[in-house]
Structures are given as structure tokens and as C-alpha cells.
């Protein structure tokens, strides 16, 4: 079990099959965000993160015992004057039954965030129930705000 950081197009290309699996799993969720409902948008996000030479993007793939990919995580440094020094976890997916502990992946995210001198890491969950929030609380996250939407 290992976690690999993807930093180039050459490293992404062999993962296309796994990326399609991630997309199918994430986009079919009833509450999936709009930007994750189109495969081209999803791929653009993945490639842009992998090719980001400024170091503001982090693309992690967790590997199983046979070195096959079984998890994906995308994080971005979105620091600016308005939000302060913060990173956002844009997407996290783990194949059902994967043995790689999520904590290993999360530790990599936190060490990346520390290396960039960030103050906070945030992530958004569409699970509004307390049950759905348990996963995030387990990793030390706490709910700080609720997102509200008004369709026009």
C-alpha cells in the first residue's frame, strides 16, 4: 500500500482507465457537483492539477498491494486576500473495499499543506446528515459553514 503523487501528463495517461472508474462512481451520485458531471471537465481538472508547475495543485493516487490504483485525491491551494491561506480538497474517491487507509492519504495532504505554509484545509460534503459527516470528523475536520443554493 502506497500513495503516489502524480506530477506529469506521462504519469496520468496510464491512469485513464482508473480515472474513468472514478468519474463513473462520482458523477452518478445524485448530489454530485455540476463540474463533476462531465467527463471532459473532470479530465481537465485532473490534468490541470497534475501539470500545475506552480505547486498549487496536488494529485494523489493510492496504490493497492499489487500496485493497482484504488484511490484518488485532488487538492488545490486557493489562497488569496479574501480566504486567507487555505487548501481545498476538490475530490476524494476510494474504490469500495480498498485496503489503503484513508489516513495515509490525508497525512500526505496535510504535509503538502504544511510545506506551503497554509493555515487550513477545507473540503465540502454534500452529505447533510450527521451520519454522513462522521467520515470527515474522523479525520479531524469540523463543520464550519453550510452552502445554500437558490436556482433561478
Amino acid at each position, binding site marked *: 500500500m502506497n500513495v503516489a503523487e502524480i506530477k506529469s501528463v506521462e504519469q496520468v495517461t496510464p491512469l485513464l482507465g482508473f480515472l474513468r472508474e472514478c468519474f463513473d462512481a462520482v458523477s452518478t451520485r445524485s*448530489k454530485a*457537483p*455540476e*463540474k463533476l458531471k*462531465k467527463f*471532459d*471537465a473532470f479530465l*481537465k481538472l485532473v490534468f490541470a492539477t497534475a501539470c500545475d508547475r506552480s505547486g498549487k495543485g496536488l494529485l494523489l493516487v493510492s496504490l493497492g498491494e499489487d500496485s493497482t490504483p484504488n484511490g484518488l485525491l485532488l487538492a488545490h491551494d486557493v489562497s488569496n*486576500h*479574501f480566504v486567507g491561506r487555505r487548501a481545498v480538497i476538490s475530490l476524494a474517491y476510494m474504490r469500495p473495499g480498498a485496503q489503503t487507509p484513508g489516513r495515509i492519504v490525508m497525512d500526505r495532504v*496535510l504535509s503538502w*499543506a*504544511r510545506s506551503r505554509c*497554509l*493555515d*487550513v*484545509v*477545507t*473540503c*465540502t*460534503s*454534500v*452529505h*447533510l446528515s450527521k451520519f454522513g*459527516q462522521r467520515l*470527515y470528523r474522523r*479525520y*479531524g*475536520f*469540523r*463543520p*464550519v*459553514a*453550510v*452552502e*445554500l*443554493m*437558490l*436556482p*433561478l
Partner: protein
Amino acid sequence: MQLLHQRTNDLRVIVIDSLETLLEQWPFMQDGLERMQSSFKAFGRVSPEALLKLVLRAVGEYPKGGVVFVVHSMNTPAFYGIVCDCSTDFTPRTCCVYAMYSSGSPEATKAAMDFITDWARKQEFRTVQTWSPRINGSGFRFFEKSMGFKRCAVLFEKAI
């Protein structure tokens, strides 16, 4: 030039589109910020300078990408809102209500929401988004019953 949107005899919406108008309305905005911070612990500490930066950004993007407005009820300021474009690639055009304050007048709140939806439709936005740090019943009631929003996600944060 100061733009006035007369809603009824008692309610009018003032759009801040110049430094002159901003200076006139700023005391109410700063007072609203202080009141919110003293009333709601969850709101955290936002400095007047941070609010001013946000206002200047929205005023700079007016009319296509942002708007700052104050609703006056009986010639008294009762509500303010700061709205900016927050669209991203591959998503419907979305604007975000970054800050708002109501002094407690339901009519002013209704007028403010009507103004936001009218403005957003005119600028061809598809959805209006906002974030609230008040994760409790009264916070949800305000946004869902008074303003018509629906909860769609929870933001989690971990300090490093």
C-alpha cells in the same frame, strides 16, 4: 451616480456604484458587521478592512460581475448585500452572496432577495449561492424560509 430602485413608498434599494455613495452607506455597513459579530459567535472575526476589500471588488465588477446594495426602509438603512460572480469552468453561471446583514425588517429582506434575483437574472446567472456559518435551526430558517435558499453542502475545515 447613485441608482435608486424604488420598490414601494417605504422601501428603496440603493446600488453602490461610486465612492460618494459608498461613503454615505459605509457607516451602516460597518455597524452591521459589528452587530453580526457580536450576535453570532459562529461568524468569526472579520475586520472592517476585509469587508471594505470585498465591497471594492464587487463595486469594481458592477454591473456584470458584482453588486453592492443597501435597502432602506422608511428612509432608514435596513439591509445590505454584497454579491459577486463566482462561476467556474463547466458549471452554470453562479453568483455568490458574500455578505449580507439585516436589521430585522422582513420587508427589507424580501425586497433584498427580489433585488438579488432580478439582478442575477439580468446578468444571466443560473444560480445564486451563499454560505452561512450558522449551522443551526434559526440560521436555516432565515435562509430557507425568509430568503428561499436550499441547503446543498457542508463545508468542513481542519486547522494545520
